[in-house]
């Protein structure tokens, strides 16, 4: 009797019960506390990374076809970059940069790609005598290091020019060096590339977000499936099915459990946002004023939290509909493990692809996966975190996800209705298809 029942108010009544049932459970409270703790750690990640960065040595290589020029450039860059901060007189001051000369450009590129080098300074003297300095790095041109190196480039030009003064080469005129930054694959924020620290933060946050997304979608999805299977095994389903239609029950379950998930999401996000709001003060207290600069909002931003929220809601809805249909097919929650495995594997494929995307790999197939439901919630979120994604790409991905939810909702409702109509039986494929057609 599916046609006679409007979706409301029964779906709302069912959603309310599901919501209360979930949010009052000890498991919900415990997982919320754990996940909120993780999110707060993520919010503090930029400070942590800056703190770690303060204690690490950044390796740069100088490449030039002129060995003398390479030597002069390396020496000058080393002295400029390793000037101690104001007030530091410690003789054991640890030099933050190590500058070396690389004779093999290809090998240097390989080390850059492997993360052994933070950047390569390509220094050449043009026929006009002008020095051309190109910094090849993962950092943006606006990063602090890039800015400092622009000063170094000028100095390299001056040193080189002075080395060619009489008697070596009289009459040479000083020409301001060229300096440019060749940024390699960094994320963008407001149409501007983000710097290396931001990228590092984003990489870390990306992993946290993707893991959170995967966990919440699979856990909440299993809640939906288990809820349906439990109602069948406890036989309360027979009371339910005489009081509400399958459509009302499916919608109520997905909305109620989704709302519980959203509540948990807010409980996780709000403390993290509070930490963000005070991030500069926390950084200053921990790192001191000089090192604290640049930590604000480099990692967890409201826009990224909103992105996570959107992809969580859409991803959860898509998976929850399928989980609910699956739950209707078993008579006991124990049987769900086997049946839900393929769906968990699908989510796992999305998760792993997202991890690949966070590492900057995958190329075209990662880009494709970021548009294809059900992988897109994971992969597009990962891409947003660590690479340059155009707004239209996000919009297309969301639109495709919404369209997929619409289609899956129709099929899942039929499956669910068929599953509960086949109550008490062991449904074969033929019986299921026949039942689904009658719904």
């Amino acid at each position: 009797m599916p046609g006679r029942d409007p979706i409301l108010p029964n779906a709302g009544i069912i959603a309310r019960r599901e919501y209360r049932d979930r949010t009052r459970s000890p498991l919900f409270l415990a997982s919320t506390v754990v996940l909120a703790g993780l999110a707060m750690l993520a919010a503090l990640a930029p400070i942590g990374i800056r703190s770690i960065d303060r204690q690490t040595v950044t390796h740069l290589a100088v490449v030039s076809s002129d060995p003398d020029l390479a030597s002069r450039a390396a020496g000058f860059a080393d002295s400029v970059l390793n000037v101690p901060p104001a007030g530091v007189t410690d003789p054991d001051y640890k030099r933050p940069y190590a500058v070396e000369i690389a004779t093999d450009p290809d090998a240097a590129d390989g080390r850059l790609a492997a993360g052994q080098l933070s950047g390569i300074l390509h220094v050449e003297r043009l026929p006009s005598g002008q020095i051309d300095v190109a910094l090849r790095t993962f950092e943006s041109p606006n990063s602090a290091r890039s800015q400092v190196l622009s000063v170094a480039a000028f100095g390299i030009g001056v040193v080189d020019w002075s080395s060619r003064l009489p008697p070596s080469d009289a009459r040479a005129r000083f020409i301001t060096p060229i300096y440019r930054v060749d940024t390699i694959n960094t994320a963008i924020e407001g149409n501007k590339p983000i710097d290396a620290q931001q990228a590092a933060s984003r990489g870390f946050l990306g992993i946290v977000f993707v893991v959170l997304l995967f966990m919440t979608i699979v856990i909440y999805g299993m809640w939906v499936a288990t809820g349906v299977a439990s109602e069948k095994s406890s036989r309360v389903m027979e009371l339910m099915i005489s009081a509400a239609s399958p459509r009302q029950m499916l919608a109520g379950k997905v909305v109620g459990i989704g709302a519980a998930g959203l509540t948990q999401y807010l409980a996780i996000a709000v403390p993290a946002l509070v930490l963000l709001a005070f991030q500069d003060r926390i950084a200053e207290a921990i790192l001191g004023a000089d090192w604290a600069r640049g930590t604000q909002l480099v990692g967890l931003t409201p826009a990224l939290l909103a992105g996570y929220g959107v992809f969580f809601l859409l991803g959860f809805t898509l998976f929850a509909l399928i989980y609910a249909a699956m739950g209707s097919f078993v008579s006991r929650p124990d049987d769900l493990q086997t049946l839900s495995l393929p769906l968990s594997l699908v989510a796992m494929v999305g998760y792993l692809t997202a991890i690949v995307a966070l590492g900057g790999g995958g190329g075209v197939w990662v880009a494709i996966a970021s548009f294809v439901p059900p992988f897109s919630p994971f992969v597009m979120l990962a891409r947003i975190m660590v690479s340059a994604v155009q707004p239209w790409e996000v919009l297309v991905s969301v639109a495709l996800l919404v369209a997929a939810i619409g289609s899956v909702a129709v099929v899942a409702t039929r499956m669910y209705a068929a599953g509960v109509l086949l109550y008490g039986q062991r449904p074969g494929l033929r019986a299921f298809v026949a039942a689904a057609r009658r719904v």
Partner: protein
Amino acid sequence: MSLEIDHVTKRFGTTVALDGLTFEVGRGEVFGFLGANGAGKTTTMRICLGIVVADGGAIRWDGRPVGVLPRRTWGYLPEERGLYPRMNVLDQLVYFGSLYGMEPDRARHEALAWLARFRIPDYAARRAEELSKGNQQKVQFIAAVLHDPEVLLMDEPFTGLDPVNLILLREAFAELRDRGRTVIFSTHQMETAEAMCESVAIVDHGRLVAGGRIRDLKRASGRRTLRVSIVGDPSPAWLASLPDIGSARPDASGFELELLPSADPAVILTAVIARGASVSRFEIVEPSLEALFIEHVGRPAGDDPTLAPEAITQALSPGPVG
């Protein structure tokens, strides 16, 4: 107005659950739906509710197909008891009442009244899992009747109840009937059905084998027993020679005579008196519902045909050799 089950058929794979089942239940009746396990009772109820879709035939209430009726028309007590284990009793009842369109306040008020009536008012705030099976059953009954449905479908409502609760439930049935509600219940307890119902339907293998008013069914069976006691003659064997007597056997205080369909008790009594006998007992006994059931189905209602002795014997016997 009535509930019409009209040539309803249903198959599950190769198993025929309902085979053109047809009967009618009048409004305001307490109706017994009798049959052995697997006869098709639960399937019929589920089809009424739309839980299972019939392959053929129709079910109508008040002349309208059940598929167009609002859900609140029905109240359903399934055979397998089930409630939300961790939800408290009152919340649970208000929840189900709300699903049937009741205002929460009214549902709460009605639920408390029913709990008091069933002598479990203190259980309102308890979780369902903390209740005994019998009390859970009462709560589930309340969930089925709270919204005051026109038709109540009850699958084995008396199973597992102690005598006191059995009486409470019977009284509730009688009250619902007096308010014009139609109560249809299945049971294996023939004495209960006989005590509570005016009409019954006896089904076997998905078909109606007997149906109608119990009194009419008994009359139609043609089976009547006459119990006679004669003062000063503990074993009046001559009674067997009276007209229209099928068989005779002594009982504790006289003779029990099986009457042929053509027998007229008044003629027999006249014949006995004419013999000069002093009659201390002359009692016409109709066959019990249990006897009628066995007559039509071939076994008692509680017997599971899948566990019939022949089946067990066959299952245990070795297969053909060679």
